[in-house]
């Protein structure tokens, strides 16, 4: 009789895959991901290939500083500022208006500091890149001038300019060798991706499952279906069918993303950014899949149960609110935990089954939880899934035949007794 489970699954999948909204959504997301996958390449192209901004100065004004600026930009491998000489002060504005320069510099003396105040005049006030570059350059020149006056040697100057070095290293207590910085980065990336994917899967698929069940109820097809197949099989057929479709979609999307990242034009930019797909820890991947599945089924059964007690689609959103809130809370705690994987909040939440798919995975990816922490969390999660699955099936069994206003908990329990389940 597992035949009917299969029939429900196939029916669910067929209708979903054929629906226009599903096809359009998958296509749109795939295109977005392909664009996102090319972002490193595009950043390289746009960032590196940027033409230097032309900055004008009046000939004869502050020649020492102008010369310093020219020298400074000459020694840069890819200068982003090019200095352009303009005959006089009055000409500067014209040059800007004609588009010969993007902006121009004017100076006013400032005896208190011993270095003139500079003003960068441009058409827009948002010339962040150019101004910060100019600030750095001017700072350097000022320092240079003053240090020359103070009679510092070149070696001393070098020492002064060298930035302070501070790097972090994660200490690993288990026997495995500590993660390299690259692995660490990949772990953060994977954790982030997994949390978002799980959140989306739960919200989208969960809503879909609940909506479909309520729709079946409100259109009264349910009465025929429950007389043909046991409610339990129907519920699981629906959940599994939706799950497979969600997986399919996920595979298409991740496939599009990964293929893009491995494209030859993206290879260099990826290694520049320190992303190396092969440095993902396979154990972490296994955990990712496990927690993804656990989270999905935990929430899917809950959504199914709620869907079964609501008679009209209009009432569904309200009835789902508590579950939606729990998911949201789990998601935001996880987002917070990305920066502080060892905070007390996270340590507590890793054992709460509704949050643990998000949080325990985050801990495994970013911190070093002891084996018993993982075991306890996974154990609690599995027990909860079984309990919720059992309870949901019971609620579903009575819920699908209860019409009218949304029943209270008391009424559901009463109905369970009456139906002898």
């Amino acid at each position, binding site marked *: 009789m597992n035949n009917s489970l299969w029939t429900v699954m196939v029916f669910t999948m067929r209708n979903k895959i054929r629906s226009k909204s599903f096809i359009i959504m998958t296509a749109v997301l795939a295109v977005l991901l392909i664009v996102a996958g090319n972002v490193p390449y595009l950043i390289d192209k746009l960032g590196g290939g940027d033409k230097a901004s032309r900055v004008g100065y009046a000939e004869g004004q502050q020649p020492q500083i102008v010369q310093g600026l020219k020298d400074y930009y000459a020694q840069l491998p890819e200068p982003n500022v090019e200095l352009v000489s303009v005959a006089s002060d009055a000409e500067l504005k014209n040059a800007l208006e004609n588009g010969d320069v993007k902006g121009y510099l004017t100076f006013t003396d400032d005896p208190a500091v011993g270095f003139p105040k500079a003003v960068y005049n441009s058409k827009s006030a948002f010339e962040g890149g150019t101004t910060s570059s100019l600030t750095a350059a001017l700072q350097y020149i000022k320092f240079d001038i003053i240090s020359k006056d103070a009679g510092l040697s070149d070696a001393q100057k070098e020492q002064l300019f060298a930035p302070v070095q501070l790097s972090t290293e994660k200490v690993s207590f288990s026997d495995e060798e500590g993660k390299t910085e690259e692995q660490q980065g990949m772990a953060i990336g994977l954790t982030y991706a997994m949390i978002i994917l799980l959140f989306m899967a739960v919200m989208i698929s969960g809503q879909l499952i609940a909506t479909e069940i309520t729709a079946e109820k409100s259109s009264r097809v349910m009465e*025929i279906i429950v007389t043909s*197949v046991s409610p339990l099989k129907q519920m699981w057929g629906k959940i599994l069918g939706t799950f497979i479709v969600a997986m399919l979609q996920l595979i298409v999307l991740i496939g599009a993303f990964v293929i893009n990242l491995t494209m030859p034009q993206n290879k260099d930019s990826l290694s520049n950014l320190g992303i190396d797909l092969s440095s993902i820890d396979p154990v972490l991947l296994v955990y990712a899949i496990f927690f993804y599945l656990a989270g999905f089924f935990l929430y899917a059964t809950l959504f199914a149960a709620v869907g079964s007690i609501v008679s009209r689609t209009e009432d569904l959103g309200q009835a789902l609110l508590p579950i939606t809130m729990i998911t949201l809370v789990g998601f935001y705690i996880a987002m917070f935990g990305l920066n502080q994987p060892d905070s007390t909040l996270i340590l507590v939440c890793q054992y709460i089954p509704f949050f643990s798919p998000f949080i325990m995975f985050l801990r495994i990816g970013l911190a070093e939880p002891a084996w018993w922490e993982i075991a306890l969390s996974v154990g609690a999660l599995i027990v909860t899934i079984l309990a919720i699955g059992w309870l949901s099936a019971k609620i579903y069994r009575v819920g699908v*035949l209860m019409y009218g206003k949304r029943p209270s908990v008391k009424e559901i329990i009463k109905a369970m007794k009456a139906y002898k389940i």
Partner: protein
Amino acid sequence: MNSLKVDNIIKNYGDKTAVNGLSFEVAEGEIYGLLGANGAGKTTTMRMILGLILPDKGDIRYLGKGYGQEQLSMLGYLPEERGMYPKIKVSDQIIYLAQLRGMSRKDADQNLKRWLEKFQVPEYYNKKVEELSKGNQQKIQFIAAVIHNPKILILDEAFSGLDPVNVELLKSTVKELRDAGTSIVFSTHRMEHVEELCRNITIMHKSNPVLQGPIKDIKKKFPQERVIVASEGGLNGLESITGVNQVIRHEHGGYELKVSAPEVGQLVLHHALAQGPITRFEVLEPTLNEIFIKTVGESHE
């Protein structure tokens, strides 16, 4: 052996009794009428037959066997409140429902085409249900109930919302199914359908079966209290005959009399003959409608 045997079933919801000690049997090729006012316990009874709820006490046997998974495939159900998937093609959902009842895809497809042909709507095969009119949706719903050739068919208000032509079409289909050996439990508020289709009936009132048996026997229990008499000219003095309680003059000629006993009819006939030739005279047996109202209505007091 009877196809369906309901034996003294009792169902309580909390302290409220929904069905109290109902028994009946449906033979092969029989349509059984289950009547009752709203809330009398018909739906609960049908749900118990369908195995959606278990009776607290009593037993339901299908071809001599208790309820089980294999019983599901021999049951067909047309619920009172109609419902299909509005956005899914007729063929897809009917085949799906048939598959759930254990039919193979191919057989289901063949059967569906045959049924659509029979209802003269083969073009609906590829249509979505929401595109069809209400009456046609009803036909599709009916097909969904019978697609898998059920041995036991439960029809809850099968003809509601249909035009007279389609009522006849479905009625003749139901009769064909009956003649082919299907046992049908039939529930409706339209007593003329019951009189036409059912051999035996149960009238339920407030959870209790109050009247049970063959329609013929039931009618005999109720006195013949209506007399129709018509003549070419008018008839005078009908009211003065002893035993006549009420005289209603019909617009198209003729009188309908409520009498206290069937024998009064003879007095009426004598009285009328004395006034001239009679074109019509009939002592009517009570309609099921009257019996129903009497049974259910009276015990309301």
